[in-house]
């Protein structure tokens, strides 16, 4: 079937091209959708934004009606989608149509599907919840025999796919790596590339297949695999050194023109491939002489070959230069690369000049002489009308700054900064200036002035490290104490001058720096000046343009200066003013100041002059409080619990859901690897009278998916009353049925996994139940045991009672016990009566009546531990009622309720206990299960969640 489709498909383009030739370009142009055309035209006719808005809103509401109308055909839907996409592009919200896009991708024929998928890729983002609804469609299309459908599915997967659903499609995509069509293989590789980007650990196990893709006979597939390799090598180059030879060989072939002409671009062989390979080589050869040596030849050839004067050759050359400078250096190559850079820098074409500067910036630290060679060009570029060129030049200069040229370069940077409005550039450049100023400042005055410029221009978007570093530098000083004092004095004087200027507003950060420096170093001024400084600070404090954070800095500065001042009029005024402030923080500061002010001696010892860098002696163990603590303990206070200990418990209960194992479970064993129930063992215990019984029971487990509703409250133990006229010898039940069941279950699991995960809430439930004990038991069969038992034959008109006990060996969610009875009726016809009983875990759960004390003891002995937070609805927010529900529905025994905590206990028959500790805070119920059985807590948790969230 697929062969036929493929053949037709390959024949199609030929037909189409003929069509094209006959019909001319109009054939492609004519059939645009009439409705879209109408919409576009009416929008073009409008004159104002307001009118457009009105029109689009009208359009959207009519579309809304159309898409939700049941009579809308898929063909109409496709047309609607196009218009919706158009509206979204214009910036209007068309989210009502998202679900229909998914439907269209699901239900439409090829053409409609294509539009549906496109709409999905444009409308939704990776974590959009609706995207989960697409997974089924993708899976279906991946399995399609129609190549185009497979292509579409792979295309959408490579663009947008929910990360947690990767396992659902991964095996299918892996299969596609062996597909006979290169386009499919290529798209499959790109889909895996996408997976590698969003969830690298999910595709780790198929690295071998990447290697196969790298060796693919089709160049396109190989090129696609390079995207993956580039990423992987970027993360860990040492792991792929052995591939260097292969990459070099491929590049040699490409450069040597060995590829099919199809891959040429403007007669340059596969430029994209070349560039990707060069980038990979650059990563592999970095700091590695031996690996680098392998590539010298091919790099040399690349540099030599790329002579054609076309843009794309420059692209390759640029990459080549980059690689030559990235790997272990070889002087001959460096020389050639340097020449290439020269070509770029000197080119009259502005794009090439820019890249020349970029290349210079990259290599300049290795080879500063290159800058000298091109100094004139660089100077020219500094005054280039294009700000981008200027900016790149500044970047270059930044790298070659030293003590001699720092003033000029910083000046150029500041000039640029004054013209720039973009925040990102300002933050970036200001950081660089500050760095250079700290490193290379020629003198104090220059340093302080430059930093003043940095703070004024950088304003409040500046990186907080800059003021912090500056203050630390000022405080710690350099080696020369006299010099340091001068710097500080200069700073103080310069700030006082700045504050004298009327009507200038400084950024808050700058004012904070000023207030710290003034508070700390005003003592360097004449003694009489202190009051003046305080006055200035006070004036700032009273200004409206000051943020409350800055005010705190200001008042701290005033506090520091108060003990040094002769008169304290202003300080008193300030205290008066702020002790009644509405800002509590300010009021606090003011009161502190007030009380300290009353005790000058204490204040002086508390705020010593110029001691900001002295280490303070702090008694970290708070030993002076020992007596106090001892007294408290003796009076029965609880011992102190460290903060982290208190926090730990809280945190551990707030732990969120981890979806990771979900993925792993699939990737390791496909769909069927779902963690699933174990077995039931039937212990036969015939307690009837003697006599023959005609009852035969074949029990088999039928394992249902988890979605099924548990209706049964209780379970009737195996009591079979059978009266048969005549009985037949039991026929052994065949195993084929079991196999069927097995398969059916497997299939069901597949579809259920896919449908279930569509809803967030269900996903949680699913996760908690599906991934029970993962890791400890990696492979679990769906059906572990098929015990058969056969009862004796009962004679006619006799009554026999058989009693069987069913035990659960390992916990499971739901099982099925079935069998049949053969009997003969009066007319000696043989008949069969089948029966089956659904069993769920709850059928085997019984309350465990123990005391709180025993609970505590048991709790400590159990190692298997599961925690989960469950959100409760308002109605059951009270703990006792919640526990009562659990007691009723799950037959858990409520051991104790202590405040907002509750203890529950139950046992899985015959004797596997499970303990539950729960705690309520707000509307969250934190459940904590412990049991001697590793899987039981997970199953019970699932049940509890269902009860709590379901009611």
């Amino acid at each position: 079937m697929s062969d036929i489709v493929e053949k037709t498909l390959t024949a199609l383009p030929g037909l189409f091209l003929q069509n094209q030739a006959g019909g001319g370009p109009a054939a492609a142009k004519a059939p645009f959708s009439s409705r879209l055309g109408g919409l576009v035209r009416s929008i073009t006719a409008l004159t104002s934004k307001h009118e457009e808005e009105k029109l689009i809103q009208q359009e959207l509401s009519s579309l809304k009606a159309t898409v939700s109308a049941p009579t809308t055909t898929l063909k109409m839907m496709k047309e609607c989608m196009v218009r919706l996409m158009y509206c979204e592009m214009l910036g209007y919200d068309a989210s009502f149509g998202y679900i229909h896009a998914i439907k269209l991708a699901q239900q439409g024929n090829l053409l409609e599907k294509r539009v549906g998928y496109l709409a999905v890729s444009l409308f939704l983002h990776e974590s959009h919840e609706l995207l989960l609804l697409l997974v089924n469609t993708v899976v279906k299309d991946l399995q399609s025999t129609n190549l185009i459908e497979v292509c579409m599915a792979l295309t959408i997967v490579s663009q947008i796919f929910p990360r947690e659903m990767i396992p659902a499609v991964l095996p299918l995509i892996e299969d596609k790596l062996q597909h006979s069509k290169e386009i499919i293989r290529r798209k499959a590789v790109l889909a895996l590339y996408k997976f590698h980007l969003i969830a690298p650990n999910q595709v780790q196990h198929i690295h071998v297949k990447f290697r196969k893709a790298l060796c693919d006979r089709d160049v396109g597939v190989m090129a696609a695999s390079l995207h993956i390799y580039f990423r992987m090598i970027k993360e860990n180059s040492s792991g792929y050194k052995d591939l260097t030879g292969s990459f070099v060989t491929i590049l040699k072939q490409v450069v040597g023109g060995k590829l099919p002409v199809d891959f040429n671009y403007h007669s340059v062989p596969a430029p994209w491939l070349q560039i990707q390979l060069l980038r990979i080589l650059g990563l592999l050869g970095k700091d590695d002489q031996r690996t680098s040596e392998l590539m010298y030849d091919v790099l040399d050839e690349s540099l030599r070959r790329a002579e054609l004067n076309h843009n794309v050759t420059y692209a390759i050359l640029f990459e080549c230069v980059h690689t030559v400078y990235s790997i272990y250096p070889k002087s001959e190559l460096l020389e050639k690369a340097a020449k290439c850079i020269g070509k770029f820098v000197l080119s009259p074409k502005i794009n090439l000049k820019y890249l020349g500067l970029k290349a210079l910036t990259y290599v300049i630290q290795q080879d500063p002489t290159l800058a000298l060679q091109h100094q004139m060009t660089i100077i020219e570029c500094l005054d280039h009308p294009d700000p981008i060129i200027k900016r790149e030049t500044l970047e270059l200069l930044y790298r070659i700054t030293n003590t001699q040229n720092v003033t000029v370069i910083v000046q150029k940077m500041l000039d640029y900064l004054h013209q720039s409005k973009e925040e990102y550039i300002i933050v970036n450049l200001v950081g660089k200036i500050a760095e250079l100023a700290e490193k290379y400042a020629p003198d104090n005055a220059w340093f302080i002035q430059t930093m003043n410029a940095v703070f004024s221009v950088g304003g409040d978007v500046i990186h907080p490290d800059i003021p912090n570093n500056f203050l630390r530098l000022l405080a710690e000083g350099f080696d020369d104490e006299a010099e340091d004092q001068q710097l500080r004095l200069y700073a103080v004087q310069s700030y006082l001058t700045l504050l004298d200027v009327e009507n200038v507003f400084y950024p808050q950060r700058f004012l904070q720096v000023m207030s710290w420096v003034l508070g700390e170093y005003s003592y360097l001024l004449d003694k009489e000046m202190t009051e003046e400084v305080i006055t200035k600070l006070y004036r700032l404090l009273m200004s409206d343009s000051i943020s409350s954070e800055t005010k705190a800095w200001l008042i701290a500065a005033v506090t520091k200066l108060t003990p040094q001042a002769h008169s304290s009029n202003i300080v008193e005024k300030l205290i008066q003013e702020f002790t009644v402030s509405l800002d509590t923080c300010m009021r606090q500061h003011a009161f502190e100041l007030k009380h300290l002010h009353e005790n000058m001696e204490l204040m002086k010892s508390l705020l010593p002059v110029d001691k900001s860098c002295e280490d303070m002696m702090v008694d970290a163990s708070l030993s002076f409080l020992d007596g106090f603590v001892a007294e408290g303990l003796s009076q029965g206070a609880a011992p102190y619990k460290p903060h982290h200990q208190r926090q730990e418990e809280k945190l551990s209960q707030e732990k969120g859901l981890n979806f990771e194992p979900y993925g792993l479970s699939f990737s390791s064993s496909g769909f069927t690897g779902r963690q699933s129930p174990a077995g039931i063992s039937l212990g036969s215990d015939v307690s009837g009278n003697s006599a023959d019984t005609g009852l035969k029971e074949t029990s088999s487990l039928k394992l249902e998916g988890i979605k099924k509703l548990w209706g049964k409250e209780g379970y009737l133990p195996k009591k079979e009353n059978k009266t048969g006229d005549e009985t037949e010898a039991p026929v052994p039940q065949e195993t084929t049925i079991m196999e069927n069941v097995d398969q059916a279950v497997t299939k069901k699991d597949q579809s259920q996994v896919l449908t279930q995960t569509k809803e967030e809430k269900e996903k949680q439930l699913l996760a908690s139940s599906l991934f029970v004990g993962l890791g400890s038991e990696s492979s679990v069969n769906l059906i572990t045991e098929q015990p058969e038992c056969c009862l004796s034959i009962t004679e006619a008109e006799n009554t026999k009672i058989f009693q069987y006990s069913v035990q659960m060996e390992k916990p499971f969610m739901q099982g099925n016990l079935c069998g049949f009875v053969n009997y003969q009726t009066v007319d000696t016809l043989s008949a069969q009566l089948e029966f089956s009983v659904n069993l769920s875990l709850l059928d085997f759960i019984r309350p465990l009546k123990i005391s709180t004390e025993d609970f505590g003891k048991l709790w400590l002995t159990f190692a298997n531990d599961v925690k989960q937070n469950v959100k409760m609805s308002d109605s059951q927010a009270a703990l006792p009622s919640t526990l009562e529900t659990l007691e009723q529905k799950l037959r858990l025994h409520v051991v104790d309720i202590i405040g907002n905590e509750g203890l529950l206990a139950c046992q899985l028959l015959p004797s596997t206990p499970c303990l539950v500790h729960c705690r309520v805070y707000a509307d969250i119920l934190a459940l904590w299960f412990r049991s001697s059985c590793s899987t039981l807590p997970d199953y019970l948790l699932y049940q509890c969640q269902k009860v709590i969230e379901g009611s």
Partner: protein
Amino acid sequence: MQFMLLFSRQGKLRLQKWYVPLSDKEKKKITRELVQTVLARKPKMCSFLEWRDLKIVYKRYASLYFCCAIEDQDNELITLEIIHRYVELLDKYFGSVCELDIIFNFEKAYFILDEFLLGGEVQETSKKNVLKAIEQADLLQEKTENMYHSKSFIGCKRAY
């Protein structure tokens, strides 16, 4: 590549493809800012822009600006060639393409883009192969739609 935008000289967005997950709000903000910045640039200026921590590569073809965002270490020149190849593809497909082709058949323009770039990386560089893939999927459409609308829209393009 992080994203690709096509917009007109008037600043109207004609096509947008995002290869990185961003909220609608961010997308709108980026689009608005970029369109403004690019339109403000003079014709003789460099085709590259530094914008936030991204590199913008743009080129104007007739009335349309093609604008790509790449990361700093990506190759700007080859990105220009990506734009160029895309224009070539559009040109070949529509037969001397103009802005109106892209407005009225924007979904086609997307299909071509998806066949050329996938997940932000160049997927297929051969012009022939890209168009082959598009035409395969197109063919049915041409057949069905031609039956109904074959002639009626010829000339509309000129009118607008």
